């Protein structure tokens, strides 16, 4: 009764192995020409849950490739990107990176988007002892595995993203400093850790936590939270938001009539006109946020990046996705290492990155021995209906900081 099944099965297995052998044969014709392109491989979520940031990262890589090739390539060779789509799926990204390494035989790797994908993918890279630089892998557990070849190309891990904000709060004179704080956060691996980081630093400085709750991602109605914050009387509100919930909390606070002395939100305020329209432009005044990159920051190559991006993809400067800039920066780090070492020796590259600081469009980046970055995100604040960089001083676009936060305009 199972005869047919077994025979069909055996036939299939045989077919697959033959197909596999053919597949390998195709890529084994390798010439030794020195102008042979330098293959850089990455698997990105171009489809699925993370498709938006994934596509933005791809844009960043592509702008970088164009700029590098215009300047003569890397090690004198033209750069060619081999980008696969992992469809935001863990199994696919693992087989993609295996494929890039063993089938496509790429020379260098670049990382993917989202810690959920980067964690398994970086394990593949580490097993194969290949440098893995990711533009978006700030999750706390990313760097606890003792990897040597892994690097995160942003100024700080999630927990340290808001360090400049925390430092500013602590630096305030004691009579002006907020005494109590509320920490509402969405249950999101990118938002919640940032707030945890702020909470840790501020508690250590003696600021009392009067509200700390995590809410599910689909929460639309933040009235109960605003109401609870009002009851707590918190003078500082730091929210781990994504977008809708950031806008919603502001509107809810207006509804219940509560204005904290100062307020910080993740991500939402960085979305420019979308945010201003959502909360009402009069209500943005004084709200802080942190970003890894700003088009206004006067870091080397940043203006070129902005120009090249607009030329290739169009749109407004304020609409350039942060993820594209992060992707560009990751490629910059790779480029600097290859130039610095002068070869494609992965171990040498890893050692070089560990011991050097690289100037990128996100600012100078350097890493500890686990591959975690040691800088801080840019601290920005809405002032007069516009976003202004207020820290670090080197790239600040506004010398003043709005504090205390003026009342809502309604």
């Amino acid at each position, binding site marked *: 009764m*199972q005869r047919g*099944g*077994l025979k069909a099965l055996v036939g299939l297995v045989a077919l697959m*192995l033959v197909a596999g052998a053919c597949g390998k044969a195709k890529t084994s014709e390798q010439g030794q020409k020195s102008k042979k392109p330098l293959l850089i491989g990455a698997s990105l979520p171009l489809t*699925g849950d993370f498709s938006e940031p994934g596509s933005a990262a791809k844009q960043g890589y592509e702008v970088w490739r164009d700029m590098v090739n215009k300047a003569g390539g890397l090690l004198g060779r033209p750069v060619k990107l081999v980008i696969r789509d992992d*469809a935001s799926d*863990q199994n696919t990204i*693992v087989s993609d990176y295996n494929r890039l390494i063993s*089938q496509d035989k790429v020379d260098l790797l670049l990382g993917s988007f989202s810690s*959920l994908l980067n964690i398994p993918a970086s394990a593949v890279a580490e097993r194969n002892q290949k440098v893995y630089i990711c533009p978006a892998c700030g999750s706390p557990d990313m760097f606890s595995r003792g990897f040597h070849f892994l690097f995160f190309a942003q100024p700080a891990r999630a927990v340290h993203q808001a360090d400049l904000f925390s430092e500013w709060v602590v630096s305030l004179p004691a009579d002006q400093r907020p005494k109590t704080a509320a920490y509402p956060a969405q249950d999101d691996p990118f938002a919640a850790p940032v707030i945890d980081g702020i909470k840790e630093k501020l508690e250590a400085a003696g600021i009392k936590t009067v509200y700390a709750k995590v809410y599910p991602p689909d929460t639309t109605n933040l009235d109960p939270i605003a109401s609870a914050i009002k009851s707590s009387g918190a003078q500082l509100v730091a929210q781990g938001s994504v977008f809708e919930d950031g806008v919603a909390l502001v509107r809810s606070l207006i509804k219940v009539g509560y204005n904290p002395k100062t307020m910080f939100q993740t991500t939402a305020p960085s979305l420019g006109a979308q945010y201003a329209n959502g909360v009402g432009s009069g209500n943005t005044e004084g709200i802080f946020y942190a970003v890894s990159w700003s088009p206004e920051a006067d870091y080397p190559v940043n203006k070129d990046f902005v120009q090249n991006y607009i030329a290739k993809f169009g749109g407004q400067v304020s609409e350039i996705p942060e993820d594209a800039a992060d992707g560009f920066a990751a490629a910059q780090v790779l480029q600097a290492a290859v130039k610095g070492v002068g070869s494609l020796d992965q171990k040498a590259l890893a050692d070089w990155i560990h011991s050097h600081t690289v100037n990128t469009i996100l600012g100078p980046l350097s890493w500890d021995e686990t591959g975690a970055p040691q800088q801080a995100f840019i601290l920005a604040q809405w002032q007069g209906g516009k976003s202004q960089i207020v820290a670090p001083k080197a790239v600040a676009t506004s010398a003043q900081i709005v504090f205390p936060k003026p009342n809502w305009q309604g």
Partner: protein
Amino acid sequence: MSAGRVNGLLRWALLLAALAVLVAFPLARKEDAYHQTVLFLIFLFAVMSGGWNIISGFTGYVSLGQSAFLGIGAYTVALVALQVHVSPLFLVPLGGLAAAASAAVLGAVVMRTRGHSFVIITIAFLFLMQTVALNWRSVTHGSNGITLPLPRWNSDLGNMPFYYVMLGLMVLSVALSAWIRRTKFGMGLIAIREDEDKAAVIGVRTSVYKVLAFVASAVLIGVAGGVYGYFLTFIDPRGMFDILMSVQIVLAALLGGRGTIWGPVLGAFLLVPMNEITNNYFGTSPGERLFVFGLLLGAVVLFLPRGVIPTIRGWIDRFREAKRPAPTPRPSASAAPRTAGPGAAPDLEEGAPLLEIDGLIKRFGGVVAVDQCSLFVRRGSITGLIGPNGSGKTTLFNLVSGMSRADRGTVRLDSRSIDRAPAWHRAYLGIGRTFQITRLFKQMSVLENVVAPLGRFAWAQLGADAVSGPEARRAQELLDFVGMLPLADQPAGQLSFGQQKLVELAQVLMLEPQLILLDEPAGGINPALIQRITDLIRELNQQGVTFVVVEHNMPLVLSLCDPILVLARGRCIAQGSAETIQGDRAVLDAYLGEGWSRVEERLEV
């Protein structure tokens, strides 16, 4: 048969060759991490699909939440490994244990539910596990997930340990399926799938079987979860409790052939490469992968519900067998085999009541099907049970055999109340029952149908061969007795109605019942066969079997049965010999309507 032996050896040779190729592959192609990864995923899907197949293919309870066990296994192994600092690969059996335990606990709910409720339970369970993993942050790190350190073996080995462990699991999974299929346990599961109530009535302890099947379906998936988590070095709620993975393993099993042994493996070999190919060569846009899966699943369910391979094989088989004529039943020349159980010895208290029904009431919504019915059946009699349509005869049979539970009243067998006994227990106590419209297990052969009934429940019995020597012989004797032996290997669904009735009778006799309830044994069959059945009944009765016969064929009832009980509107309105019943006014009223007896009176005058 030597052709069969050769075929059998050929299959083994093919099997070993395929296995050898798979074992040798990573050794021959050490550098090929990509294909090793793809094969690893194929093996994983085969194991998961194989597990699904046990509860959904064999037992017929469709689960959409099997990947919950993958996650349970993965989290368990990872958490323990991080505590005790042992390589997770040594701890993977713990994953299986955790999965089996959760399946056993969930089994309490599973035991009492039927098809559509079961699916809902599995979906709820999967989402519940995902939510727990997301929110129990102190243990599971919530949405950040758990990271495991890289494997510490020599990097020359690459992914080979994962590959071989998963290959081993796949082999185990196939072996488990094959073993189950061969045993009484497997036969019971298939009986449950085909007709759960009937299975209970012939002695299959359905509640226990279902839970066991569920546990068996979960255990290997749990082990695979432990390996998979380590392979990814990352375990998070989103990836580990993924409903899409559940859908994919269902699709794999359906493609390869649901309810077969190799189907899940074949399906995995089809599905995973298909995934890879579409991903690499066609490139998908958001939602396209889901869309294609949905369409594929829908198409398979609508057009090829048994699976691609079995359907194609079915077409081929049917084409081949179109010309062979069906054999006709021959009456047996041999003496009737031993059929009566110990409680039915002819001289033991003949005439005393074997079955007593006291004040039985059964309501369906507003309808009272059985209304304060009280009657008794004498041991050793062939008692007829007649009455107009809707008088409650079949309901009464259901209540006695245990397929329905009465609202009030008692049923006593041999002076002992059996009200609390479930259907399968009543089968063990010696009640057998046939159905108005035969209920055989259509996918099983005639012989398998007759062997299926179980006289008792024993854990050891589960592992016994489905069709063993002595049982097969007895079944063949019974089939010979009813004249159906030539058809022993045919699928029961292909028999004619009359043939099925005879097989059902043989099936009932397998349990050596002391009381047989026959529901319209002569309904819908030709007169020659009716005579045959009547002779069989008489012969069995002489050996001490008590019969209750529901019939509409009056000549048959009047000639065969004594006494005759008349049921109308849910209660017994008359009883006695054939003559008594024929003249009873109440009986005539019930059958013909109240005006009749008055008309008759006037005519007599």
